[in-house]
C-alpha cells in the first residue's frame, strides 16, 4: 500500500498495483522515496478521489481485453468523464502532474469532443474566455476558410 496526501492534508491509501500507473509515483517507488507518505501539493482531495477511482478501475487494464471486460471499462470511462468543465480541468492537471498517460488521453479527448462542434461564441462562453481579437481579424479568419464556420453540425448552445 502507498499513502498519498492531498494539498488539504487528507491521506489516502492506494494499492501499489494501482498507483504505479502513474509514471511519477512509479519512479518514486523505484527510487525508494515512497516509504512514508507522498505529498501531492498540486492536487486537492476531491480531484484525488476521482483519480484514485480511475486508477483502481484500470488496475487490470492489460487483462481486460482477454476477459471480455473491455466494454465494461469503456462504459466506466464514459461515466467517468461525465463531469463539469472545472472538475475535468482539475483532473487533466492532476493526470499531467502524476503523469498518467491513459487518463490524460481520456480527459483531453473528452474535452476535445465536447468542443468539436461548438460555435466560436459557445466555446468562449463555456470556457469563460474574453475575446481579444478585433472584428477585422476575426472576419479575416472566417474569410480564410468559410466552410469551417458553416455546416448543420455546428452547435451554438452552451452546456
Amino acid at each position, binding site marked *: 500500500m502507498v499513502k498519498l496526501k492531498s494539498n488539504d492534508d487528507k491521506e489516502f491509501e492506494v494499492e501499489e498495483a494501482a498507483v504505479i500507473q502513474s509514471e511519477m509515483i512509479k519512479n518514486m517507488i523505484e527510487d525508494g522515496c515512497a516509504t512514508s507518505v507522498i505529498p501531492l501539493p498540486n492536487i486537492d482531495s476531491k480531484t484525488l478521489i476521482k483519480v484514485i477511482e480511475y486508477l483502481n478501475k484500470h488496475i487490470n487494464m492489460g487483462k481486460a481485453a482477454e476477459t471480455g471486460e473491455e466494454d465494461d471499462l469503456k462504459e466506466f470511462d464514459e461515466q467517468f468523464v461525465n463531469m463539469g*468543465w*472545472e472538475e475535468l*480541468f482539475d483532473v*487533466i*492537471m492532476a493526470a*499531467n502532474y502524476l503523469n498518467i498517460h491513459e487518463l*490524460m488521453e481520456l480527459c*483531453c*479527448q473528452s*474535452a*476535445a*469532443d465536447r*468542443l*468539436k*462542434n461548438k*460555435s*466560436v461564441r459557445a*466555446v*468562449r462562453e463555456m*470556457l*469563460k*474566455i474574453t*475575446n*481579444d*481579437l478585433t472584428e477585422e*481579424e*476575426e472576419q479575416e*479568419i*472566417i474569410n*480564410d*476558410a468559410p*466552410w*469551417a*464556420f458553416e*455546416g448543420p453540425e455546428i452547435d451554438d448552445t452552451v452546456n
Partner: protein
Amino acid sequence: MESKEDEVSILAMPNLPEDLITETLLRLPVKSLLKFRSVLKSWLSLIRSPEFVKNHLLLSATNKDYKHHSLMFKNGFKDYSLTALLYGSFVEYKKLLSYLSRGSVVEDYLNYLVEPVGLNFGFVYDECQDDYKVVGFFPIVRDRDGYLIHIHEVKMYSLKSDSGRCIDDFQGRRLLDGSPKLVNGKLHWFGGGAKIIFAFDLADEKWTKEYGIQQSWTKMFTIKFPPPQDRAGLIIYPPFLMSTKGDILLQFGSHFTRYNPKDASIRYRDVTNFTPCPEIRDCPVWEIEWKKERDEKELKAKRKEEHAMIAAWGSDSDKDKVDETALMALGDSDLDEEDEDSEDKVKGNKRHWYLESACSRHMTASKEDVFDVFEIFIKKIEKKLGTSLVSIRSDNGSEFENVKFLKFCSINGIDHNFSAPRTPQQNGVVERKNRTFEDMARTMMLPGNIAKNLWAETIICNALIFLNQSATRCL
C-alpha cells in the same frame, strides 16, 4: 462576488497551462481547429504554428480508432469518415474539394491525374522529408526492336519543391492493380494478378525488389464469398483496411461492407447519398466465386448498364462518339502483338478483333508474353469501348490453353471456346483471315522490295493495322 470572480478565472481554460490546452486542441478535427482560430489570439498563434500542425498530423494519423481518417473517392472527390463507415449508425459523404484550399497545387495535380482513365496513383505524406508526394503511373507505348510494347512510366510530384519528375527505373510491363497502400514509408502496389508486390520507397525514391519472394509474405485473412441470400453484388473489391478490432472494411458490389473474418459475417453499411461510383471498375477483381446462378441475360443487361456509365464518365461525351474515337485509337496503337486465331465479339453488333499471337512457325515471339499482352489489350478495349468481352475463340495452342488464361476467363466471366484439336476447319473465319494477312503482307513486301526476314514485322506492323483500320468488313 469578488471571490466568485476569482474562482472563475482560475478554472477558465486559458488558465490551464499552455501545454495542456495544446494537448486538448491537438485532439480536435481540422475543421474545428480552423474555426477555433478565432476564439482567442493565443489560440490563433498556437494553431498556426508549424510545430502544432506537425503534432496534430502525427496524432491524427496514428489514432487507433481512425477518428480523423476518411475514405476518398476520386470521382467527384467524395470522402467518407472511416469511423462512421465501420461503426457509426449512419454515414454521409462530404465533398472533399471544400477541404482543399482554392487553387492549391494538390487540387490541380489531382485533377490532372484523374483524367487519364485507369491511372493508378498514390497521394502520400513523406515523413522523412516532411513533404507531400503524388506517385502516379502513366501508360506509355515504346518501340522495342520493332515491337510496340506497353510499359508504365512513373512520375512523382513533390509539393515542397512544386515539381514533378520521372522515375525511370521501373520497367515493368504489367499493369499494377488498384491504388497503392502505404506501409513503413513505402508505397505498395499489386502487380501481375496479385502475384508480385511492387514497393516504392519514398525516402530514397527507389523501387524495392525483394518483395518478389512469395514465401516472405504472410496471409492475414481470407474473405469468404457469402451465401446467395447475403449478397449485395457480384464483386468483392480489395479491402480498404482492417480495424484494430479485426473487422475489415471493403466494398461489395456498390455497398460498403464490414466483414468479420472470425465468423465470416457481413454487415452492409448504409451510406446516405452513396451512389455506386463508376470508378469501381478501376479496381481489380479480387476474388470471385460467382457461379452462373442468375439469368445470363440479366447479367449482360447489368453489365451494359455499368459500362455505359464508364464510357460517359471517361470522356463526358455521348456513347457513340466514344466508340468511334476508341476504334481509331485502337487501330494505331494497340495491335502491336496479336494473338493468333482469337476473336472477340463485342456486344450485339458483333465487333471482332483479330489478334495475332506471333507464335506460329512463321513467327518468333515468345508464347509466355501472349497472356500479358492479351490482358492489357482486353483492359484497354473494355475501357475504350465501354463494353465487355463476352467470349473468345481460339485453337488449342499452349499460348491460349493454360492456367493463366483459364483463371483470367473465369474471373472475368468470359467464355473461352476452343476448336477441336487438329481441326483448323472449325476456326474457318480466323484461318481465312490469316490467309488474308499473309496475302496482304506479300503484296506489301513485293513492290517495296522488303527482305524476306522482315516477314513477321510486315504482318504485325502493317497488315494487321491496315485490316483493323479499314472501313470495310469484307476483308
